[in-house]
């Protein structure tokens, strides 16, 4: 379980996150939604100890993120950053293989190599495995970095806008893959999504952030109402239902 207690963050005097209290139990998919600048990436970077906590407390399976050894956390929690730029002269296979680093520290066992192969297959990367990352298209690169995050094999996955640059085929495949590992292996995905309908279809829970505050939290049915959506995104959009799930006509 990830527990966020009383967390605030500010840059100089500008508040970015204000008194966030959130607990995310083990298992399932939580979608984090909200407009640009709401603080979603900032919240992720605090959970993943990429920047120091200023106020409050965050624990992952009861381990405080600011005092637990980095490697121990890396075996429990993986993060895909929004701008996951990586070095150029590395092949897709090498990049994906780095996901295993927290487990083997540079000496991959047969099991690690098998997991890398599995991730390459899962994300349709076998034909690109020996290409340099800087020779790929944006979507292919995104898939390679997503595959690396998966390969880390952690109980918790923080994915910051993982669908960026992905075509519909691969976006759907990624969401289905998340669903599978959540259902069959009790793994937990927290995922920043801009496509609210992806959240409606795949998430168990939606947390909405605006101006650094949690302003809605619940099942897709609870959160995806016209009133809630207006207060989150600042304009009125129609909500239909399809196959029993909310379907937001946000583009009209």
């Amino acid at each position, binding site marked *: 379980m990830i527990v966020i207690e009383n967390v605030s963050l500010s840059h100089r005097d500008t508040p970015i996150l204000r008194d966030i209290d959130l607990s995310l139990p083990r298992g399932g998919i939580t979608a984090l939604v909200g407009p640009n600048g709401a603080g979603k990436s900032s919240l992720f970077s605090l959970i993943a100890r990429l920047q120091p906590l200023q106020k409050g407390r965050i624990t992952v399976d009861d381990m405080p993120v600011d005092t637990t050894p980095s490697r121990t956390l890396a075996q429990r929690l993986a993060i895909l950053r929004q701008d*996951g730029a990586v070095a150029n*002269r590395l092949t897709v296979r*090498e990049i994906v293989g780095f996901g295993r680093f927290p487990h083997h520290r*540079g000496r991959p066992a047969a099991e690690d190599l098998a997991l890398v192969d599995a991730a390459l297959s899962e994300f349709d990367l076998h034909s690109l495995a020996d290409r340099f990352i800087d020779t790929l298209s944006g979507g292919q690169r995104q898939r390679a970095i997503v595959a690396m995050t998966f390969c880390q094999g952690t109980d918790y996955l923080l994915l910051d806008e993982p669908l960026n640059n992905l075509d519909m085929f691969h976006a759907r495949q990624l969401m289905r893959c998340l669903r599978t590992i959540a259902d069959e292996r009790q793994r937990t995905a927290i995922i920043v999504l801009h496509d609210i309908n992806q959240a409606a279809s795949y998430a168990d829970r939606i947390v909405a952030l605006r101006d650094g505050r949690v302003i809605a939290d619940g099942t897709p049915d609870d959160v995806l109402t016209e009133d809630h959506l207006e207060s989150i995104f600042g304009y009125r959009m129609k909500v239909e239902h399809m196959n029993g799930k909310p379907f937001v006509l946000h583009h009209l």
Partner: protein
Amino acid sequence: MPDRRMIVLAAIALIAVLLFLTVGLRGNVQFVLQLRALKLLALLQVAISIAVSTVLFQTVTANRILTPSIMGLDALYLFGQTALIFALGGFGYASLDAGTKFGAEVLLMIALAGALLWPLIRTRMDMNLMLLMGVTLGLLFRSLSQLLSRLLDPNAFAIVQTASFANFNMLRADLTILGTIITLAAVVVSWRARHVLDIVGLGREAAIGLGVSWIRTAAGLLLLVAILVAVSTALVGPVVFFGLLVAALAERVMRTQRHALLLPAAALIAIIILVGGQTLLQHGLGGASTLGVVIEFVGGLVFLALLFHESRK
């Protein structure tokens, strides 16, 4: 299986070493060989420390056109030399005890690096800020050296000029061996860190995500860089741009950013250029003491080329 390009590099390096030892052997062979072996040791030591320190530094700072000289260690060294010449005069400077001087120089440079790293560790200060402090201090030391050299008489100034470039002609055996041992130890540590270095090269956030304790690792690597630079600078003098040339070539030749390949390739290329260049200068061109100037010139050209290349992207 060892990489084919690595084998070729190693072979060329070996040939350069053999040529350096054997070309134009005359007179008292044993004596000449002893002299050359000492010089070779110094050349190898410098080649390897410059190569390894530059690769480490570029990886930690995630910047391909930086060299460790941005930390200002060589500027401190130069200022120290100028100040000594100023205070003691050319003759007094020349009669300083080489061992004490070597030890004091190494310690001073490592102390400066420590002073730069301290806030990084204690207050989690930003690494770019630390580098900026290094640049500023380097500038200060350089300006002070210039100020002092204005006040020197021409003879003393000529000594400062000589001290500003690497010089492989005035070596003491014991110091060279001591320097080589320290360098070897630092190189072993770097080699053992090769896998972590691959991860560090992905950048701060990605490395933390993969379980690297960033501050500790970055500070440790920078200290390693400082030790390598300090020892080689105290031994033969400052080498600024050469590392850039070597690191850039290694990446082009190996076409990878994996340190298991990058580190040895950079070291071998440095050996080829330094030892090969020295052989060429000694026997082809006759001006043995200018190697330091030549490698800096070529390294400087590479720096400009990289700048142009980066700015066009």
